[in-house]
């Protein structure tokens, strides 16, 4: 009936818009559109390989640590070295803390306003002074700005918003979630204190280098890191998890909406220095069937991306050039495919693959949540499944942190040393909070001859493939009921559950040189 363009999709990282075709109150077709392009990889060529540790973090300010680690692993494989134990564990601790920041910010500050009614503050009658201050703030905003030139922005940045009968109605639930929003700001900041304790700063850590990290695990550093674990664990287990359950109880439909069933994970947190043993498992899942991962099946297709080059190429064989205004193309994202199949990456992919691979703690958490909703495993392939998977990850990660700290050699060396070879090729795979992230490098004359990054959001927000098959977000949107095409909040809920990060997804320009082939492990 109506084509609806949602531009911009806010409360995500970066510039994304979604076009949907609404027929009989449901999404009949969808297009995912990446709206920004920088061309990072061409900028990397000719530089010192070590610059990659810093420059690749600028691909994304929300999960720079994963880029820093992917580039470190990539350089290590090109230099022919491994990290030492301290280096690997300190990296895991940084990445883990950044995961907590990222998952909390996603649920509370990016996704929650699709469900929570901020205006419920006006109906608050309790005695909490912080809530009453917020209430007074909203009241004064509305009163003072009424009829003024700035009336539209009374209550900014929370208003204006989509208006309709689709927010949580229970006042207490709303108030509780708003209190969670405010508290989570502090919690995610504390997670960043933990990142900075090791990485020097956050975002964009300084101390990630080939061979390990630069920060020696002194007692003072460990004390600073440990200080916040208890507080975060309490918040995640008692508040975050309960809020996810509360949203799921109110919006049960979303166990069926936004469904996608094919997944990829490179494996989260290295438990050895050989890239073989992981905290959450590596693999590919089609529904409930899991297979080992084989990197040679990865291709990137650009029929519908604004690039002028050949398509369906293994990432480092590309010859891609940007082509603004390319006919038929509608996005700056490419379409990655595995065995010609679009795959979802991210928390749900990791949790599903770990569950199917027999990971006991993941199984316990997933089964526990399914029992609450009297649901079977098919319920996890959904919008709510993605939110739940994030909460489960946060719970397992915060519980694992103290064990990893105990494995550190206090005051021991944080890294192995290296010499930059004249020539070398490397590949680094890591799981960013948003999903599978791979970096590839070719070194010639001690300089970067080519650098590639295939990032999570291209996997799930990418366009149709060369065969016209839609990307994961586009497929997941099909069938989503839209109650009011002028306020299509339901579509926004589905898209946001993936946690898109567009700065990451649209940086890719491939050089015109063939890189050669790599082997995983």
């Amino acid at each position, binding site marked *: 009936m109506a084509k609806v363009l949602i*531009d911009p999709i*806010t*409360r995500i990282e970066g510039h994304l818009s979604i076009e949907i075709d609404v027929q009989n109150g449901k999404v009949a077709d969808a297009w995912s559109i990446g709206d920004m392009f920088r061309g990072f990889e061409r900028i990397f060529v000719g530089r*010192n390989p070590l610059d990659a540790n810093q420059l690749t973090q600028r691909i994304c300010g929300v999960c720079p640590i994963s880029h820093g680690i992917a580039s470190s692993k990539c350089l290590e494989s090109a230099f022919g070295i491994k990290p030492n134990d301290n280096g690997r564990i300190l990296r895991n601790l940084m990445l883990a803390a950044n995961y907590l920041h990222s998952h909390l910010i996603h649920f509370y500050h990016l996704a929650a306003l699709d469900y929570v009614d901020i205006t419920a503050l006006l109906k608050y009658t309790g005695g909490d002074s912080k809530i009453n201050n917020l209430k007074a703030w909203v009241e004064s905003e509305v009163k003072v700005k009424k009829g003024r030139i700035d009336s539209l922005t009374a209550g900014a940045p929370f208003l204006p918003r989509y208006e309709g009968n689709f927010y949580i109605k229970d006042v207490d639930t709303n108030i509780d979630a708003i209190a969670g929003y405010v508290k989570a700001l502090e919690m995610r900041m504390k997670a960043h204190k933990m990142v900075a304790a090791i990485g020097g700063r956050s975002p964009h850590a300084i101390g990630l280098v080939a061979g390990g990290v630069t920060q020696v695990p002194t007692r003072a550093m460990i004390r600073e890191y440990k200080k916040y674990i208890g507080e975060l664990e309490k918040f995640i287990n008692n508040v975050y998890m309960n809020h996810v359950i509360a949203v799921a109880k109110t919006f049960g439909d979303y166990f069926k909406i936004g469904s996608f069933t094919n997944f990829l994970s490179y494996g989260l947190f290295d438990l050895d220095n050989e890239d073989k043993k992981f905290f959450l498992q590596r693999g590919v899942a089609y529904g409930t069937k899991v297979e080992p991962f084989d990197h040679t099946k990865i291709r990137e297709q650009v029929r519908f991306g604004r690039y002028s080059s050949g398509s369906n190429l293994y990432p480092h064989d590309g010859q891609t050039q940007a082509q603004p205004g390319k006919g038929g193309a509608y996005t700056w994202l490419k379409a990655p495919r595995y065995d010609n199949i679009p795959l979802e990456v991210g928390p749900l992919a990791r949790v599903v693959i770990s569950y199917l691979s027999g990971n006991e703690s993941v199984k316990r958490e997933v089964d526990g949540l399914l029992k609450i909703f009297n649901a079977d495993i098919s319920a996890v392939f959904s919008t709510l499944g993605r939110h739940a998977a994030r909460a489960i990850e946060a719970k397992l990660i915060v519980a694992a942190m103290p064990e990893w700290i105990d494995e550190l050699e206090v005051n021991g060396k944080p890294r192995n040393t290296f010499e930059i070879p004249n020539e070398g090729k490397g590949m680094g795979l890591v799981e960013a909070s948003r999903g599978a992230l791979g970096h590839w490098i070719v070194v010639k004359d001690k300089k970067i001859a080519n650098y590639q990054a295939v990032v999570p959001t291209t996997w799930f927000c990418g366009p149709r493939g060369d065969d016209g098959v839609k990307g994961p977000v586009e497929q997941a949107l099909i069938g989503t009921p839209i109650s009011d095409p002028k306020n299509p909040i339901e579509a926004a809920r589905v898209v946001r559950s993936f946690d898109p990060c567009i700065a990451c997804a649209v940086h890719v320009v491939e050089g015109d040189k063939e890189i050669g082939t790599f082997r995983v492990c």
Partner: protein
Amino acid sequence: MSFNRRDFLKLMGGTAAAFTFPSVLLQGCKKALEKAADRTAVIWLQGQSCSGCSVSLLNKIEPNIATVITEFISLNFHQTVMGGTGDAAISVLEDAVEKNRKDFVLILEGSIPTKSAEYCTIGEVNGRRVGVSEWVTKLSANAKAIVAVGTCATYGGVPAAEPRDGSGNPTGAVSLSQFVKGKTVLNIPGCPPHPDWIVGTLLHVLLKGMPERDEYNRPLLYYGKTVHEQCERLSDYKAGRFAKHWGDEGCLYNLGCLGMDSCCDIPVRKWVGGNNSCTGCGGGCIGCTEDVFPDYGKRGIFKHLTAQRAKFIKPEHRVPVYNLRNGGVING
């Protein structure tokens, strides 16, 4: 909103010592809250950015970010945090343009592509995608102050870097001051900038007017000294103790640390209210507050990792930054 001088200096984060910000409005009465509705409006646009500056802003402590946006500013547009999506979000920008509003501060995070507007668009108006460049042109015409947050908006940063093959920058990315020629742009560089610099500078503008600035239009309060002269490892430098590898003790000069050529107060301010900094963690300064980042005259961030110090100190390897000309502190 009135402050005595001491409170104001604390608010600016002018001292490195920890302090508790007296939350004026939370302690205050209803009248103060009504006044809060007169907070200065802020429109925060993102160009070619990674959102790192926004994430850094969320790390603001004392006053925390919730206090900042409910008491000090009215954050009318910010894609990462705003409730509205699609048309509801764009209505805020259209409203500001249509009504010729002059009551807001325009902030840009990220650079602006000039080769094609399609390289970065925000929303659609009357069936046409609108480039960030067009929004900046329209909004900067009336804004009461224009602020560049972060190194991309200040100088161009990584998106504006030059490929070494001479093919030119892929998107023609430029900084805010290069784009809005002839207007004063207050610059808060850093990749990312410390949240104290962002909020402190903004509050200075709102409460006391423009802060004192250097030749790059950076507030001297935060960018007035080099990293080197405030460095935790300055005594190592003076004593001639130099680290050979990352993770060693000693001055990081031979590892390519750019602290002598870069201005900011991170070694004393520290990141996220903790005890660590770029130099503290043993990595070193990467010069991200300077206009040469990340090109350094083709020097590379860590180019001199394996170089001998005598070699490194040659003038052609040094980044020409104004501090050195102004009797800087190269000899510590």
